[in-house]
């Protein structure tokens, strides 16, 4: 059995950099709260090089590095980053399980286990699989390391080992730079630490033996007892008799032994394919205007689309929840009739939804969720012309809905309603079937142009037959007339009841119109023009 462990060693930092990639390469500190006394909990390599360390207060850190950028740790961003790590893993293996979050020294790490059995057939080797995994994680904005071993425990230990070596290499590089800056010869060499490690089963014991016992993340009391006993390496622990260890150190040591012996070898089970994806952000300052809010939404949508792309899905309807200043919440469901993964288009739809009505208070936090939909596919036919591609059509429909409104875009429908003003639209989709042979009239047909709403008219009609009209579309004496034809309906409902007498009329100014007398309201209207 082969298990891969995908490990993000510094999740708070990775989560912030994923949301704000413009901060990459700058000295950055993630702090536990707002205010000058808040504690630094994670730092970027540049901040470490400047001398900032975790546990410093913000004031202390800024006194050492004035250019330090400070961001408050966001649970919403970390949650989204964890989910992204799972999405990355799911994009390469169906058997995936999230590791429980640790406390203490490893509280900042997030790990995911994957079933790596047989991946060599797809990726040539397990190293290739691990490299593909790290590449995808980096593309998704989360730098991570991967270790492949025969159990969950050993793969986690190996991944922690790589992360520690990478950190050590960074420290060595920063120390080397400091030495070189001081004009001294460096005693450090940049270590060529990689981001993947594959352990074959025969080498696992040899690999684990020299590792420090801290990598097993023992509880404080147990760690103290082990130190007192002089046990500092994993190999020293595994060589001791199990029964004696439990007698002296309690049952807590069994977990460490299971990890060190690679006994946690359960394979992650394939989970149900979840299609709901959520992204969120807690803002440091409330936002009052739509423009800066759009800027934040654009980032959220881009990250949402990236995660859905890992699942080969695109955005469906959007659920937007705004946390407002003062404790209120504004929840909206924004319909996306044509699923698509273009953040620019989706932003247009969201903006339209936010403009009417505007949020009633400044926004302090945003949560955006969507139900992933499969990408629309189309099988082209050699003998029929190809229309727009499904993806281009989806994007265009969403843009048109953002421009004109969702109820104003679609395919026209013939409605089963006797009311002359009735019309309807259905969602437009590329027809999959061959075109039906429509009834072809033998002659050219005069068409009607509907007037929506009907235009009121002043009509002189002695004995009920119109003779003269004044309206916005036709004026003058009526020189030709046919009708009336009575249309009635909706008799069961006082609100929907209607009765019209319709006429075809040619007016003195040359227009041919359809004129009607509304028997319910006793008014004349022009409801269509022959054209």
């Amino acid at each position, binding site marked *: 059995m082969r298990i891969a462990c995908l490990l993000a060693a510094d999740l708070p930092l990775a989560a912030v950099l994923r949301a704000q990639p413009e901060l990459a390469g700058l000295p950055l500190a993630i702090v536990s709260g707002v205010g000058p006394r808040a504690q630094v909990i994670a730092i970027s390599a540049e901040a470490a090089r400047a001398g900032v360390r975790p546990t410093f207060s913000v004031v202390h850190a800024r006194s050492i590095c004035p250019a330090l950028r400070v961001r408050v740790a966001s649970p919403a961003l970390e949650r989204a980053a964890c989910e992204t790590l799972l999405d990355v893993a799911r994009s390469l293996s169906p058997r995936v399980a999230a590791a429980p979050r640790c406390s203490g020294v490893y509280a900042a790490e997030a790990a995911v286990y994957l079933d790596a059995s047989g991946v060599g057939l797809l990726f040539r080797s397990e190293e290739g699989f691990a490299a593909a995994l790290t590449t995808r994680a980096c593309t998704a904005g989360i730098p991570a390391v991967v270790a492949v071993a025969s159990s969950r425990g050993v793969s986690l230990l190996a991944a922690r080992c790589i992360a520690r070596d990478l950190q050590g290499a960074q420290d060595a590089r920063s120390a080397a730079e400091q030495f070189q800056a001081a004009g001294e010869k460096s005693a450090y060499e940049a270590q060529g630490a990689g981001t993947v490690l594959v352990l074959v089963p025969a080498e696992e014991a040899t690999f684990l033996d020299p590792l420090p016992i801290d990598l097993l993340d023992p509880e404080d009391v147990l760690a103290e007892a082990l130190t007192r006993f002089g046990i500092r390496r994993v190999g020293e622990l595994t060589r001791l008799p199990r029964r004696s260890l439990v007698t002296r150190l309690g049952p807590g040591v069994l977990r460490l032994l299971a990890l060190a012996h690679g006994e946690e070898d359960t394979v992650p089970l394939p989970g149900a394919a979840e299609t709901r994806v959520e992204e969120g952000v807690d803002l440091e300052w409330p936002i009052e205007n739509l423009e800066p809010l759009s800027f934040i939404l654009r980032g959220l949508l881009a990250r949402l689309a990236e995660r859905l792309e890992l699942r080969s899905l695109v955005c469906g309807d959007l659920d937007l929840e705004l946390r407002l200043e003062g404790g209120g919440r504004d929840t909206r469901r924004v319909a996306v009739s044509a699923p698509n993964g273009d953040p620019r288009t989706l932003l247009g739809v969201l903006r339209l939804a936010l403009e009417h009505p505007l949020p009633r208070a400044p926004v302090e936090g945003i949560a955006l969720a969507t139900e992933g939909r499969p990408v629309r596919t189309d099988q082209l036919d050699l003998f029929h012309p190809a229309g727009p591609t499904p993806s*281009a059509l989806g994007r*265009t429909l969403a843009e048109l809905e953002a421009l004109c409104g969702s109820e104003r875009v679609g395919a026209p429908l013939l409605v089963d309603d006797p009311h002359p003003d009735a019309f309807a639209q259905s969602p437009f989709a590329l027809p999959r079937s061959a*075109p039906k042979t429509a009834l072809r009239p033998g002659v*050219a047909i005069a068409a009607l142009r*509907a007037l929506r709403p009907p235009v009121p008219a002043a009509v002189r009609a002695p004995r009920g037959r119109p003779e003269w009209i004044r309206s916005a579309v036709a004026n003058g004496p009526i020189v030709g007339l046919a009708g009336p034809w009575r249309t009635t309906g909706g008799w069961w409902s006082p609100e929907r009841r209607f009765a019209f007498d319709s006429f075809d009329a040619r007016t003195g100014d040359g227009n041919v119109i359809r004129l009607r007398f509304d028997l319910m309201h006793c008014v004349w209207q022009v409801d269509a023009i022959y054209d």
Partner: protein
Amino acid sequence: MPPPRPISPVPVDASRLERLLRDLRPQVRRGALPALPPPRCPTGISAIDGLLGGGFPCGHLSEVAGATSSGRTALALGLLAETTRAGQVAAVVDAADAFDAASAVAAGVTLERVLWVRAPHVRAALRSVERLLEARGFPLILVDLVGREDRDARSPTVWSRLARAAAGAQTALVLLAGRRLAGTSAELALEMQPRRACFVGMPALLEELEVQAVLARTRSGLCGAAGRAASVRLHVLGSAA
């Protein structure tokens, strides 16, 4: 080893070359692609198609202008019917909100192949057209601006930009309006004029409209000189139907 001799071009005997070309003249041609006329979207109305040389040209902006009851909409529905009958999809950007599904079906349009965009104003209509042209794959886009000929609709910049986009998308972009709006950006312009409405019988029924189409502008000489006209009779299904 002797040094290599420089390579000199073989002298061409001009008189021999001319003699050779003369002998081969029927077989030798200067290489060039034949100039094909652009594909056309027919209207299904033979008089109009004859006037236009087969229909409205794909990849160009064309406009149909005319007064009320001059047959502009009948022409547009004919275009839609022929396009959808060929298995293609078409878009109607309707700033006038005047599309009548029953008339379309009577004209032979397959409604499920028509994307109807009811633009709330001219600016949204023009932007919608641009988006549709960007999407590609719509061989016909009808823009109905009848009664909405405001300042945005008269901007020559907009029409030249849309004409270029139509050329890129190989789409027949057809504009319906009360008067000509696109100016020199239009490949061809058709002006429709109402002639008479025919009421027959007792009680009277509106039987047909007679209209005249005048080719007011054509940029290519393929479909004949401007100024030619054709008379069309449009049968009315009418309220009685």
